[in-house]
């Protein structure tokens, strides 16, 4: 059975249930009260992490690292929840996780951290991450990480992997379909969509084991300078698309159905 070294890249994002408002900061656009917003691991990076843990569990001898970039305090906040989910070794990078930073700079910091992990063996290496982030939403970072690491077997929008001697990978394509590819062997890079796994239940034993390494990793988090060199934001604003909603309360289902059917068929 093959052993894998699975490195998951991820960052932290504000809780999506929070109100987000852009402001202009000294270095460009930012979120209002950004440091006050509760943070969690980016949802697609989370899916990648759960899939990584699942793959590692099926292949004894495999190991999972999480290379996470964000303000140290925010990373700690996210890890308090995450640590109980899956066995993982954290590599923390202390830097901006803002959506207004440049993917290329984020990727450079992540790739450098991956290259610095002791004992990384390219013949076992799978680099996982979200296919996009919930902040920048560009789908760019993982591609550049792969390029810097010299990995040209890259897959995006991944929903499934079957790993044996080779890797069978399902990628989302247009029209609700999946493209099926077979990659000979690692190294490979997978940008995950949602996958098929539910969020793992909290496991206090996993949490205790993880925390022995997570806190030291946070303490020695390497500063990462991540900005948006060369980008000039002309504006960042909330959409002003409030519609004047007509509330229809006193029509029967038949009358409503007639209105809707006419509306649908009226080109």
């Amino acid at each position, binding site marked *: 059975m093959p052993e894998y070294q699975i490195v998951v890249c991820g960052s932290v994002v504000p809780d999506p249930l929070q109100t987000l408002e852009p402001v202009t900061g000294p270095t460009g656009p930012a979120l209002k009260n950004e440091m006050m917003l509760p943070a969690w691991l980016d949802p697609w990076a989370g899916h990648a992490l759960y899939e990584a843990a699942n793959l590692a569990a099926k292949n004894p001898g495999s190991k999972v690292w999480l290379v996470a970039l964000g303000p140290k305090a925010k990373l700690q906040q996210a890890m308090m929840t995450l640590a109980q989910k899956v066995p993982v070794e954290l590599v923390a990078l202390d830097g901006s996780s803002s959506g207004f930073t440049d993917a290329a700079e984020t990727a450079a910091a992540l790739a450098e951290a991956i290259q610095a992990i002791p004992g990384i063996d390219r013949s076992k290496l799978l680099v996982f991450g979200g296919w996009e982030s919930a902040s920048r939403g560009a789908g*760019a970072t993982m*591609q550049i990480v792969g390029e810097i690491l010299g990995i040209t077997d890259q897959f995006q929008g991944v929903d499934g992997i079957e790993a044996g001697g080779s890797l069978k990978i399902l990628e989302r394509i247009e029209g609700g379909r999946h493209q099926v590819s077979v990659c000979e062997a690692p190294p490979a890079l997978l940008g995950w969509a949602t996958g098929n796994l539910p*969020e793992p239940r909290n496991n206090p034993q996993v949490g205790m084991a993880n925390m022995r390494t997570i806190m030291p990793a946070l303490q020695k988090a390497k500063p990462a300078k991540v900005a948006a060199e060369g*980008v*000039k934001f*002309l504006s960042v604003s909330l959409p002003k698309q409030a519609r004047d909603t007509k509330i229809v309360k006193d029509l029967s*289902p038949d009358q409503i159905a007639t209105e809707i059917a006419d509306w649908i068929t009226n080109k």
Partner: protein
Amino acid sequence: METILFLSPTEAALSKNTLEALAAAKQLADSMGAPFSVGLWGDAPKAAADSIASCGAVKFFAVTGGDFAQARYATDAAAAEALCRAAGATIVIAPSGSRWNRISAGVAHRLGGRADSHVTGLSVSEGSPAIVRWYYRQRMEGILTRAQRPWLISLESGIAPAWPGAAGSAVVEDIACAPAGVRTEVTGIESPAADQQTIRPDADLLFVTGAGWTKKQPDGQTKVAEAEKLILGFLKVSRASLGSTKSLVDLHGEGQATLTFLTHMNQVGQTGSTPRHAKGLSTCCHGEEPHTVGWRFIGERRAISLDPNCGWARGKADVLYVADAFAVMEKVNSLLAQKA
């Protein structure tokens, strides 16, 4: 002066999205007084080049060969890189799509440039392209320019009318490209059965289902089977595309009774897709801003909900019907079947 390249993989005939991006590239070139070229790759891109021969491009470049028929990173990135270098492009315009989105940032890195994806607007500001794109999952809109070149810009559909010109015979310059170390084979496509295909990007209507379909009804019982029948019946007669809220899709992973044909690919909103359709009808949805971004790019919007203060609808929809979706949709299906 900028040199603009319109770049696209080719499979069958060029899609509407591709022709829209071509029109946008041509318009940008005209606005900037810059020359523009076309770069295509695939098994046999000459036919695609001929179909847009009269677009005004000063040159057509192509990477041709069986290796480039497959949508895979190693060969697609190599072809795109070769075409950008051959054209000496400083600005690259490409239509958004899974094949291009997989490689755009990687190609930009190889060229020493930058890529921006999911661009929904393109103009010129102080002699440079300015793009519109969304941040934090369609929660806020940014307009930006870049100093780095080449700048690879991926355009979403709907930002320009499709280029309408006539076909002809294009003079195509073949570009050599020999990607090394190809270790991946595309072995097939998995599609839902035709009668279970619920995601239809070209549909006029997006039909959004919410968790309310699986909740207890006034008689105290859930009616999931009936909900399935009504929803699938509606999709059949309306040919709409099906979207879902996260809460409804998540029920499946939590082991609760839910709609069996829904997957995460149907999910719209903060952690799902933001599809583009002319009309949208939401039913039994609830939620606030983070979820409603799922229909940010829907034109006319109507909603059915028992809650007159429904966050999906207030300020977001044009019309909110306060009614029982089970009763309304049964009748809608009947009416649409008659009209068909």
